[in-house]
């Protein structure tokens, strides 16, 4: 354990992974509440084009992911589609175009620069290979997300519950939507850096989806989501580190372990909440009988 914690790549991985877990859990709950899971997934995928472009431009990959996530977010918002089916269509079209760009940039990365492994690290992440210089930018992104959500917590929840009710309280659903996309972009960038653009969705949606089934209050859901996300990231990093010894010198990717753990948590939460509901229904039907006797 001591060797694990004193290794510098592990320390960086733990810090960046913790950042990713915290922001994704927080934003994930709002994304799932708003029924925006697909848009969140699309943003994460499209951000891969930014990650890929960052190698070509020689900028920080965090900025690359963030830039592209924001471009895609505002693109989707300005397509301004209100019906759910059309929104899915618009999202799908933006997603396709973004991944196309990503294919081009990754091809250029591999052929014109000396970045071998760009494809894997952009798409699927390489947490142990993150440069230490990215720790502070990641922490800043987390602080920005937490302060924005802290300030606009109640208007964001009211808008997620019903946009009309929000309007009547003087809260503009349009502005709240933009704010949410802004922080979603930040969260996506940190997650994409940690476990890759394609797998960022898992961290964004999985813990929040599991938490929502177990909670009766938004704050409670956020705390559960954070616990799930932190457990998945920390245990995932540890397992990947140990897997070096399990598979005789061939360590498996961190992202794989993180994603599998999230999946397991989600399934357990589903089974748990289904069981809970069955018990409650059982109690509800048993009660009248008891009163009669």
């Amino acid at each position, binding site marked *: 354990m001591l060797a694990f914690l004193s290794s510098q790549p592990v320390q960086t991985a733990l810090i960046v992974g913790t950042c990713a877990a915290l922001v994704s859990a927080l934003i994930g709950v709002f994304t799932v509440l708003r029924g925006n899971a697909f848009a969140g997934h699309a943003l994460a995928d499209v951000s891969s084009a930014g990650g890929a472009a960052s190698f070509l431009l020689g900028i920080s990959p965090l900025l690359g992911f963030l830039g592209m996530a924001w471009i895609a977010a505002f693109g989707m918002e300005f397509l301004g589609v209100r019906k759910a089916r059309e929104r899915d269509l618009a999202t799908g079209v933006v997603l396709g175009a973004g991944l196309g760009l990503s294919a081009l940039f990754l091809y250029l990365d591999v052929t014109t620069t000396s970045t071998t492994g760009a494809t894997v690290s952009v798409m699927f992440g390489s947490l142990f290979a993150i440069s230490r210089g990215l720790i502070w930018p990641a922490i800043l992104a987390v602080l920005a997300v937490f302060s924005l959500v802290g*300030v606009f917590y*109640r208007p964001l929840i009211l808008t997620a*519950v019903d946009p009309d009710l929000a309007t*009547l309280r003087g809260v503009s659903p349009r502005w709240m939507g933009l704010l949410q996309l802004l922080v979603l972009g930040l969260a996506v960038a940190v997650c994409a850096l940690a476990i890759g653009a394609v797998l960022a969705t898992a961290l964004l949606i999985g813990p929040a989806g599991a938490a929502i089934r177990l909670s*009766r209050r938004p*704050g409670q859901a956020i705390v559960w989501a954070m616990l799930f996300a932190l457990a998945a990231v920390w245990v995932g990093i540890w397992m990947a580190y140990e897997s070096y010894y399990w598979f005789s010198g061939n360590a498996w990717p961190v992202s794989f372990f993180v994603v599998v753990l999230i999946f397991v948590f989600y399934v357990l939460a589903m089974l748990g909440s289904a069981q809970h509901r069955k018990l409650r229904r059982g109690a509800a039907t048993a009660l009248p009988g008891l009163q009669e006797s």
Partner: protein
Amino acid sequence: MTNQRAILAVADLSVDLGGRSILRDVSFNLYPGQLCALIGENGAGKTTLLRTLLGLISQRAGTVLIDGEVPRKHRALVGYVPQKITFDPDLPLRTRDLVRLGLDGHHLGLPLWNSRTDAAVDAALQAVGAEDFADRRVGELSGGQQQRAVIAHALVRKPRLLILDEPLANLDFGSANALVDLLGKLIAQQQMTVLVTAHDMNPLIPVMDRLVYLVDGRAATGTVAEVVQPEVLSKLYGYPVSVLRHGGRILVLPDAPENADVANLNRCAGH
């Protein structure tokens, strides 16, 4: 009563949406403590009228005054219960939380515990009889219970005018009667003024003081006795209609065409 200031004054209101004329020259006043029913078929302009009263749509002509001011300035005076909110069963939000959002959902910062807020939320829950499901998720409640939860959300800021859009539309007879009783109680106990839309006026007849009858964007207003008359409604519809009264219930029907033969009528009835 008429020497009081109208809580809601609508004068010569015309509203266009997307280039189409939706409301034309609608006028009516609503005084404190009254229940007014806004009756009309789907597409008659009921929801547009409500959204204009709430300041969500602006009018082409005419005025809307809420306690003498334009709607935007008097948001706190008006509580609104939308037609249908679908709450996902998994939505992590208790009835109590939904009600609290009605009080401080527009405030910045985190929702900290506060005994005054708690007391206001409890009072609103009690006013609609929602204490029993206050701690359950709104998504798990029945349609009637969800509606009570949303009414409590609207009531918690103690509005003087409560506006409900089609509150009876998705309810069974029992829940509909319970809701009508609740509205009567709110008016009696909290001096509330209530505006309700419905396509069937019958469930509301026992409690309504006034009625605005909307047909294709134009309105006839007054008491039931004044408005629900063949002459008034025929003029409004633009073709002859009859008003049938039976056991306190009212049915408005278009007159049969004069040249319609019995066989034709039978065929229509069969379909």
